[in-house]
């Protein structure tokens, strides 16, 4: 279960392009623009529910999922997550091209919170699951992008956490890869896992989610059945330039 109550997030964006010590000496201090990426957001995802968050660029989606994952602290409000979480916000984060496939499985796995002992025991299975058994000792950089994505996704799924947080992570692969991800996620849904997705891909969200929440400029503007929310999302005007900057934070 995920419960978000009255969540707000304020970012301070420096006016200076580069914050260097020498500049600080000359100018005395840095100045900032403050910006609310999220204001007073409340939502609830029940156990066993798949909920998607839909919004234009700069609507605060990524900030929201990062706060739920415990990466950013909230400025105000609270987040309660009961159960183990697998945050799949970026596939293959921490991968090192010059290390072997096997080393990367261990490195990425522990970063995602999978116990090292379990990884060591299941490494061969994971590499085989990604169809890379012939390349266990190969350098990761010699593999194609598709192979790397497959490997990352296979490792990520080993996290076996009942709560999934997914941010556009599946948008990177080709059609076959997405089909595979989709099938796996549907299986998770049947098993009774919980998930919060962030995306602007309406087809993916419609196929997977019980409910959608629409964010616009950091506020919840709608929540309900996927088909209706997609209509609402399409009727929103494009994000303003100022809030789009927050996406890169």
């Amino acid at each position, binding site marked *: 279960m995920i419960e978000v109550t009255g969540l707000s997030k304020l970012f301070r964006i420096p006016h200076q392009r580069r*914050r260097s010590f*020498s500049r*600080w000496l000359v100018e005395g201090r840095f100045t900032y623009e403050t910006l609310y990426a999220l204001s007073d957001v409340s939502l609830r995802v029940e156990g066993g529910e798949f909920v998607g968050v839909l919004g234009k660029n700069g609507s605060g989606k990524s900030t929201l999922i990062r706060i739920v994952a415990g*990466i950013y602290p909230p400025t105000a409000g609270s987040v309660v997550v009961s159960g*183990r979480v697998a945050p799949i916000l970026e596939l293959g984060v*921490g991968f090192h091209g010059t290390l072997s496939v096997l*080393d990367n499985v*261990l490195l990425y796995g*522990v970063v995602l919170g999978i116990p090292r002992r379990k990884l060591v025991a299941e490494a061969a299975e994971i590499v085989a699951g990604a169809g890379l058994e012939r390349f266990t000792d190969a350098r990761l950089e010699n593999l194609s992008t598709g192979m790397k994505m497959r490997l990352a996704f296979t490792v990520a799924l080993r996290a076996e956490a009942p709560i999934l947080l997914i941010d556009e992570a599946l948008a990177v692969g080709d059609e076959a890869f997405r089909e595979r991800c989709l099938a796996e996620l549907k299986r998770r849904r049947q098993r009774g896992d919980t998930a919060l997705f962030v995306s602007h891909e309406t087809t993916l969200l419609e196929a997977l989610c019980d409910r959608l929440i629409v964010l616009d400029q950091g506020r919840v503007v709608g929540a309900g059945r996927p088909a209706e929310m997609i209509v609402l999302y399409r009727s929103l005007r494009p994000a303003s330039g100022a809030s789009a900057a927050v996406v890169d934070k």
Partner: protein
Amino acid sequence: MHPWRDRARLLDIVREVAVSDFRLKYNDSALGYAWGLLSPLVMLGIYLTVFRKILGIGGRGFEIYVLVGVVFWTFFQDCTFSGLDALTRKTGILKAVPLPAVVVVASGMFSTFITLAINSLLLVLVLAVGGVLSPLAPLAILPIMCLGLLAAGIGFLVALAYVDFRDTGLIWHTALQALFWLTPVVYPVHSDAMAEVLYLNPIARCLFLIRWFLTASFFPATRFIVLTVVFCVGVFALGLYAFVRRQRLIPETL
């Protein structure tokens, strides 16, 4: 449970990141770990040539003196840099996975501790073969640990400075050059007046004690040891505290 509190996970990460950093460092060199030894040895050769042959400085045992200095100075330099380096290289992880920044910085520095352990053992071996190893040598662990704490404490402070100032790496590089010559790494301390000033520097104190325990056969002044330990532990505690206090905001600031 908040992922930050999953201690087993954090320990796994420190271990895996440290080992992979260690591998990455030597992976691309055909000589592997030997390269990590070769570079201080080349420096040793240069310093000895300059001081002994050109400037005519250095008495008996000067080679050992410089060797010990270079080995431990190299550690101090690498360790203070690797925390900052870890923070810049692992920004992606910090933004995608709930992970205390202190774990990233600590595991970056930890790989230099692996190098330190190996090099210390090799050094002891060299001293033993040369017949100059003191029976007090096991006690050298104390000042080596002090130097480790000092370097880690400063490493945390340097990494923290990077969060606000992106040119910290450049500044620290220059500061290290100055610090190198303010520390008796490659030159001997001749007079008491010189010693009084130089041993205000905790790195100099650690080096003095390491050299002493490795090669001398009687005990140095207790007061000197105690003050060194207190100072190094203090710097470590300060660095760690300052870093941990601000780490919640590091992923969004990077």
